[in-house]
């Protein structure tokens, strides 16, 4: 585990992709998504529920995910999210974009200009 937690600003722009990625494996309800993020990040990053709900509302508005009410549990009905075909396409696109950006940013921030010489 890192001493300093990852700046959430760096991650915020990718929350949609993270959520789409988690949903591409299976349908999940809100708290489950947050829990998976914590697990995947080894406790280094915590996705707050309000942030998730905002993202889910946005993604649903764009038609990338859809939601449905699941079975009754102790606290009431759970709302599940599922990825749409449109969402899978967007996820692949975002993933490719991210990989390209990562390679590019790696080069840029290393300050290594040997190739230029």
């Amino acid at each position: 585990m890192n001493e300093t937690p990852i700046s959430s600003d760096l991650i915020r722009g990718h929350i949609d992709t993270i959520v789409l990625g988690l949903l591409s494996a299976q349908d999940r309800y809100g708290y489950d998504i947050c829990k998976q993020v914590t697990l995947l990040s080894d406790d280094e990053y915590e996705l707050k529920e309000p942030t998730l709900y905002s993202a889910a509302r946005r993604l649903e508005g764009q038609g990338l995910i859809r939601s449905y009410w699941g079975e009754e549990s102790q606290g009431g009905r759970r709302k599940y999210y599922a990825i749409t075909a449109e969402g899978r396409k967007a996820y692949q696109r975002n993933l490719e974009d991210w990989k390209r950006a990562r390679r590019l940013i790696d080069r840029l921030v290393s300050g290594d200009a040997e190739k230029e010489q």
Partner: protein
Amino acid sequence: MEAIKYYVKGAFQGVKATPEVLEQQEELIADLTAKVADLVAQGKSEDEALGMAIASMGDLSTLVSEFEPAEESPARVPTAAVFSTRLDLHVITVSAGVGAAVMLGSTVIGAWSALIRPGAGFSLLAVLAVAVWWIRSAYLRHRESPDVVEVRELVYKARFRNAIAVWAGVSLIATLLNIASGTDFWCWPIWVAGGTWALTVKVEKWFAERAKFLAPEPELPERP
């Protein structure tokens, strides 16, 4: 998990209660409940888990601000927490008692003035049976859960006005039907029954002001 509900409802105060907002609240409540259950399973006490779950939510205001605010905060309706089954039992007993007494009195006067035929006794019996059943069901509800606390709106004026309007309307229709059918004078129990219903509003107002029925107000983030 009442505390979770209070917390969520409180966070959404001042937001228009659209179906969308109610669904968001329902989702939050279910998710928070799952989180608390998880923490309890990890060995936390219920109170501790509740505090941790709510604290980890962070700031709800960004999410809440995405929803349409309530147009104008409506004039606050005075409310009071009351022991509802106890109150209802008293209200119904008094109202049904008064209604039954009036009916009994009218029958006697009617029989004496020869306005009501002897057959009216049967309808009277039926009406009294309804009164008894009404009181009995209130009593059973009270016995089953004597300490239920419910927050009631203290808007008796409007309710009484509505009840009187309904009573007048129903009585008028019954009277017209009675005249049109040219049969016995059978509509008076309907007058009395409708009046009894309107009476419940006044009786409840009277009782609701008595300390005996007032419950402590539920507090927000208290233990469930």
